[in-house]
């Protein structure tokens, strides 16, 4: 199993987290071996969260494999941001309503806030950080710049990924198809006209 350098840090932070929680001293070895049921520590009251289950997870993100040990309940968006520092994936509502957390999973645009990381193991995950190749922006990113298709930029990674997943499958789309494909991503700045112009322009280049 490929273990990145970051994992050491992650285990450390996991340990300090547990200590902070007052749920007892779990060892890093135990964490690394899989399911751990934290034991009650010295505290007089019972642990706050019973039966936290930690699982080893292997994720394939932007073509790179990451081995982690995380709580089973954690979402992909959360894990990307806090464990892997891939903060381009934004969380606007954390309940599948806004689309800021959109990532691509096996070619489909999906809400990262509503996928459990454990459930996307073995699948190809693309985030905004993986779009540029060899230091060159993806044509859709370039089109977003050319057409000024963002304002505050917070929804932008999600918009771009929704657009990319769509354009990967659909050549020469119509405006109506583009709008449908992006209808799950809200932009409060209302840059919609520039966004669909950018997607249509990129479609011509891809």
């Amino acid at each position, binding site marked *: 199993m490929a273990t990145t350098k970051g994992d050491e840090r992650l285990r450390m932070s996991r340990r300090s987290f547990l200590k902070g929680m007052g749920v007892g001293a779990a060892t890093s070895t135990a964490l690394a071996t899989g399911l751990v049921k934290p034991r009650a520590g010295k505290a007089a009251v019972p642990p706050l969260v019973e039966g936290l289950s930690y699982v080893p997870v292997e994720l394939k993100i932007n073509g790179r494999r990451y081995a982690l040990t995380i709580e089973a309940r954690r979402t992909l968006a959360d894990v990307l941001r806090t464990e892997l520092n891939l903060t381009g994936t934004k969380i606007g509502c954390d309940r599948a309503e806004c689309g800021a957390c959109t990532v691509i999973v096996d070619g489909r645009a999906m809400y990262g806030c509503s996928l459990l990381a454990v459930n996307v193991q073995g699948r190809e995950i693309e985030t905004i950080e993986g779009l540029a190749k060899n230091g060159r922006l993806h044509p859709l990113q370039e089109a977003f*710049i050319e057409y000024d298709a963002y304002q505050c930029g917070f929804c932008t990674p999600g918009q771009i990924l929704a657009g990319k997943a769509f354009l990967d499958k659909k050549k020469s789309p119509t405006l109506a198809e583009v709008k449908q494909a992006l209808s799950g991503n809200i932009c409060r700045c209302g840059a*919609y006209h520039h966004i669909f112009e950018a997607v249509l322009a990129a479609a011509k280049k891809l």
Partner: protein
Amino acid sequence: MPTPLAVVGTSVVKVDAAEKVSGRSRYFDDVPHRDALVGKVLWSRQPHARLVNIERSRALRVPGVKAIVIGADLPDGLMGPFIKDEPILAKGVTRFVGEPLALVAACSDEAAAEALQLIEVEYEELPAVFTAEDALRPGAPLLHPDLASYVKIYEAVQEGNVCSHTTFAEGDLDAGFAEADEVFEDTFTTQRVHQTYLERSGAVVEVDAGGRLVVWSNTQSVHLTQIRIAEALLIPQSKIHVINSRVGGGFGGRMEPTVQPMAAALALKCGKKVKLYLSRDEEFTFGKPRHSSRIDIKTGVKRDGRLTAKQVRLIYNTGAYADDGPGIAGFGAMMARGPYNIPHVRIDAYCVYTNLPKSGAFRGFGNPQATFASESQLDLIAERLRLDPIELRLRNAVQTGDTALGGQRYTSVGLRRCFEQAAARAGWRRVSASSSPTKRRGMGVAAMHHISGLLSAGAFVKINEDGTVGLVAGAVDIGQGCETVLTQIAAEELGVPMSDIHYAAIDSDTAPFNWGTAGSRTTFTVGNAVRLAAGDARRQLLALAAKTLEVSPDDLETVDRTVRVKGSPQRALSYRDLGAISHWVSGGPILAKGSFIVDGPGFDPKRAVLRGFPFGPLTAYIFGVHVVEVEVDVETGEVKVLKAAAAHDVGRAINPTVVEGQIEGGFAQGLGYALFEELCTEGGQTLNPSFIDYKIPSILDVPEEMTAIIVEEEDPHGPFGAKGVGEPGLVATAAAIANAVSHALGVRLRDLPLTPERVLAALEAKQGTLSPPRAP
């Protein structure tokens, strides 16, 4: 004629483009603070109640809980931009559902959440009022019995639950109505709508080694955040350092602080770094939506369409605390005449306390309400007089040199051009064919005015050792592109390429004061400060070159980042040379500054009565006209906007593409305001705190045929003639859509939003019954 400009007026790519499309921008939650405790808020469940006791002993025993703060722990400071009426945490009494009562700092989310559940609050219910109408009744429960004793920054006119009453009056109202051939009296209402910036609000606060509060946050104004924390916690501003992240939208909602004072109180209590980050439903319930309003208008008009008199009463429901309400009501009053010459006018605006969550600034600052009402009524007038709605407006439209309400002069008015261009682009006509027997089409127009110059801003420019430039201004880019626009202004003035300039990240220790990114004022107001600073830097470069080359500054010229002697171009010093000379040899590092304030000419007391207005002079008027075509389904009541043309006089457009984006984005928000957005409450409880229940426009809702038209009526006082455009894109939209719907249906809707229920009810009222559905 101005000389042709190098950078100003061109649609250069925004300076933050690459970082934003690559996901590398660091918003609030993208900067890790792994050492921070988790902060959480206990929100009031009562709209109005005495707080008998808040018991936290059980909650404090939860492992991992480090501190719990309640109102009684805090100093007696109250905060607010116009009226200091708001504590960080309710003290003694709670005034709305969702008011912060207690704060918890803990090692984990779970511990903090558990502690919140164990805090016991004993309430003694008090009578509550939710509508302004109820709050204004004699004997209504008073939200703030101590109102008179609060600190105000202006001469506020207050009574009962009215925290601010602004009056503008000119001419002789009775004479004006007597002169009229027809008098119209109408009432309009608007709803509460939320900013719903996509990035939630948060703050990390730490007490540093020197005892100062360091605040990392996402705000529209680091300076207002600094000031409010200082006044609430009774500590000097110098002890507070506010550092901004990138900001994922604001739209006014982040002008005044959000969670920063709470996080500061918590950090002071526990002596550790604390992070407070709102959830989406907390944003909806604690946030500061646009004020709901009731607007009564009486307008007198001659048969030929000339407006003779106008009386308006605007009532803004500000919720439990004033926040920006007095400014919003006052500005709504100032805008309520509309961009029309009317000799006899009286406007009264009331900002009223109720037990709803507090309202605040949201794109337009009181003007969307006033404009919806005024522009709706103008269509009623046009209809009765059998005049084309555009013709009626043009007969009264202001021009350069005319006088605005209150006696200030309009220095640049592109209103007529806005009408002409929007009408032409949208294909203005009064007869519309419908696409199906159950659908009706209609066109509507609405105009607006606004201001772009108010209050103050400063800017620094420094010339680095290698001749590149640091630009330090206090204007936060919340998505409208001001980093780019201000960099363009500095580049133009200094004669350097934009790539030579770095727009500094903003924190309150280094950035000169700026009121905030709001009020459509950044390009005009901060732009003027930036231009002054860049001009100062240029003069200092010339002076240093003159001294070094031993010539008079008058004998020098600047060409392509080089200062040279006129007539002998070989005697020259590049900006790079001058940067090095200033740092190592002579003169000292070049530090330049610009300070700007809109301080006159002000209102004319001889012409107008002006009472309870919380601003000084406001200037650089901007204008806009929206023309829309809608299709209304008479079976379902659904309204679809098919086409829109929005023409805006923005002064010189520093970056035309960015201006178009502002117009289109404003229109999209205005469409939501017109058709479906509404923050609903029952008993003061917010009912729809989610994007599922609170709909905002998606890409499917905006019209495909949307044209943003830039009208450039340069203002003599603007930087390179520029004015502004941030808010106007939204201001006229709801009225234009309402006018189009009324045109389509032949019946007037006076209440926002224009929901299918309201459309069908209006049709029913008109026809007595709905037309039976046709057989297929």
